[in-house]
């Protein structure tokens, strides 16, 4: 506990703000049904009303309360993004470390496969698959998870390879340690810091990517709504001077910025491979 407090005291203001905002969004997502003033799908006012005491952010194209939809949307966006990131990390980091430790044809096979998948821009590949598969939540998580795992693979493999060639890993090998000890007690503790920072960046990417897909109409389908599809629904209003579409877009931006501030701090201020106590 005291470690957490000393950690908080030493964080720069920007990272602290990022942490608070991220925490705020998390609360919003977790307690959505209790926080939202109005139900998500009910039409409670006129179309595209401006902000007022009744509707803090105004209403959307079907007269639904924007704030409530935003809060529920937080849940959808963040859940799907988090699950996709978790999937990407599970696949990517496991394969990356295995490729680094086993080397040889295992490494070659996986790396070449990843190279091929990464030769197609992520969005294009997702669109290709979504042109034939239905856009269910499960499908979105799987597509995003699998596509993003390639990047996680590259990074975890690079980190693991760097650690693998260090003398202390060779010393463990010479001792006769099995692969299990080497992976979990030698490599992983040193790989955590860069991977944790990467976790934040991957999450942001997942949020932005999902929102783009929903905006294009290929992500979350009605009646479910995430922030990206909210932008899509309200985009016609912009031409008429109704800024409703900007609000979910701004929410996405704010979430991404907050997580970025924290990830940036993690990357730059925690001890690296040569360090001792975690800072």
């Amino acid at each position, binding site marked *: 506990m005291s470690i957490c407090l000393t950690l908080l005291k030493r964080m720069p203001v920007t990272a602290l703000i990022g942490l608070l905002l991220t925490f705020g969004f998390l609360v919003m997502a977790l307690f959505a049904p209790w926080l939202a003033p109005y139900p998500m799908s009910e039409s409670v006012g006129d179309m595209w009303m401006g902000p007022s005491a009744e509707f803090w952010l105004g209403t959307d194209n079907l007269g639904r309360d924007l704030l409530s939809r935003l809060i529920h949307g937080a849940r959808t966006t963040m859940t799907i993004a988090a699950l996709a990131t978790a999937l990407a990390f599970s696949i990517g980091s496991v394969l990356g470390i295995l490729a680094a430790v086993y080397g040889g044809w295992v490494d070659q096979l996986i790396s070449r496969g990843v190279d091929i998948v990464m030769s197609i821009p992520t969005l294009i590949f997702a669109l290709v698959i979504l042109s034939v598969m239905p856009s269910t939540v499960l499908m979105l998580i799987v597509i995003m998870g699998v596509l993003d795992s390639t990047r996680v693979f590259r990074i975890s493999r690079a980190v693991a390879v760097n650690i693998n060639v260090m003398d202390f890993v060779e010393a463990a090998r*010479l001792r006769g340690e099995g692969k299990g000890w080497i992976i979990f007690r030698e490599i992983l503790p040193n790989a955590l810091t860069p991977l944790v920072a990467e976790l934040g960046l991957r999450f942001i990417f997942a949020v932005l990517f999902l929102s783009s897909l929903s905006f294009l109409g290929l992500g979350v389908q009605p009646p479910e709504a995430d922030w990206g599809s909210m932008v899509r629904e309200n985009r016609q209003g912009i031409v008429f001077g109704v800024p409703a579409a900007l609000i979910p877009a701004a929410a996405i931006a704010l979430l991404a910025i907050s997580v970025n501030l924290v990830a940036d701090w993690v990357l730059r201020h925690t001890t*690296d491979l040569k360090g001792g106590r975690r800072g």
Partner: protein
Amino acid sequence: MADTLLDIRHLTIDATAYPPGEAPQEITIVDDVSFTLERGKVLGLIGESGAGKSTIGLSPAGYGRGGIRLSGEVWVNGRDILKDTPKALRKLRGKTVCYVAQSAAAAFNPAQTLMEQVIETTLLHGLATRQEAEARAVELFGQLGLPDPEHFGSRYPHQVSGGQLQRAMTAMALCPKPDLIIFDEPTTALDVTTQIDVLAAIKRAIHTTGVGALYITHDLAVVAQVADDILVLRQGEKVEMGSTAQIIESPQEAYTQALVAVRSIAHTPKPPSPTPLLAVEGVSAAYHQSGHNVLETISLSVSAGQTLAIVGESGSGKSTLARVITGLLPPNRGQLLFAETPLPHTLAERSKETLRELQMIYQMADVAMNPRHTVETIIGRPLTFYFGLKGKARRERIIELLDAIELGEAFIDRYPAELSGGQKQRVCIARALAAKPKLIICDEVTSALDPLVADGILKLLLRLQAQENVAYLFITHDLATVKAIADSIAVMHQGQVVRYGKRDTVLSPPFDAYTQKLLASVPQMKQGWLEEALTTHHD
């Protein structure tokens, strides 16, 4: 005095350190150092790492790395350059004061030819026309012993060797005919046989041009060859200063005396036993199946409780031999015998007992220990892994080992980053000892340490050998270390053993050509050694 080239008065250098996760700290790198240098003379700055020699060495150029702050006075040619404007400093650098870096390989621009870079400052400061400058450069290349001086300049940095680059860098410093050259550890990264040539070239060039020089190094024997006077530094403070003769023959301060006495550990070698502990018989090895052999028919043996020193320069194959013995690189010919039983060629085939009896200590203790493990885990793991020790028994044994390596119980919860270079290596020694091995392979274990610290480690290793009756296979490139620790010696050159036998036999004439060259190249701590050695070197 018109003859005073450099006059440093009360120089103090401070810096702010930013340790990760902690508040910034103010540290003093150099504390109130004063000295003078006369025109045409060479002053050696000697000290261990952290002494501040490089930082002081850069001050006559008015330069400081990484945001350090210089206070005091630095008079060059009658002017305090610490008060100069950046423009005036730029006029000073490259024209009056030149710098030769430690790592010439990194200090050259990979995208330009050597000639371009060598004559750059001469042209910039308008000291000569291009033709004149190029002619001077070619002359310097010749003086410094570089091959094909006429065309040497048209090559790129990556096309020439390390020793040649170091000489090219010296040519670059000499070209604008400066008053002062700062040599920052110019031969530290070179092999001993290359070092002697470069050292001679530098000394010749200094005498021919009459330039004044600051020669920075940690090796007293090297600096004794080139310097007129020596200044001894320790942790940013001046310890002693005097003429070279005085420092070497009658050092006043205890620290200086310790530096002069380094590597003079006396060791009585033991005769080899008829039944060796480890026998390497006709071993050859290559990195790839079809590649040429990196090791060619190596035969040698280590007796129980004794030390076999394997000496060689880079590329001799000594580290490869260690990899073969540990099972990381299977040989393609020959066999290994350990305690009279054949040793399986690969690591995977060896039993835990065999692995336990053969331990290894590495050169760079920083990377030889997992930074996330405490000393307790590092030393304790072999205890649990090999002997199943746990709990109190394990902890007690760890403390025993910590006492044996002269560190003590207080270190048990420390992380590697909190230890000094010498302490880290001691922990690595304890880790190897924890397994109660019969043989420890020491791969250049003192090469990365300061001379005094290295001495301490050698003494520790000798004491532990007597106590535990453990044998060492001691790999090194440093002959002085060999004399201090070896019972038998094997000299390796380009993958073969060129000389092998008892210590005194190997080190006495008659020698084969390579051993002769190697022995002659090790700097002795006496003046005039360089000239003597050069005659034998080129015979």
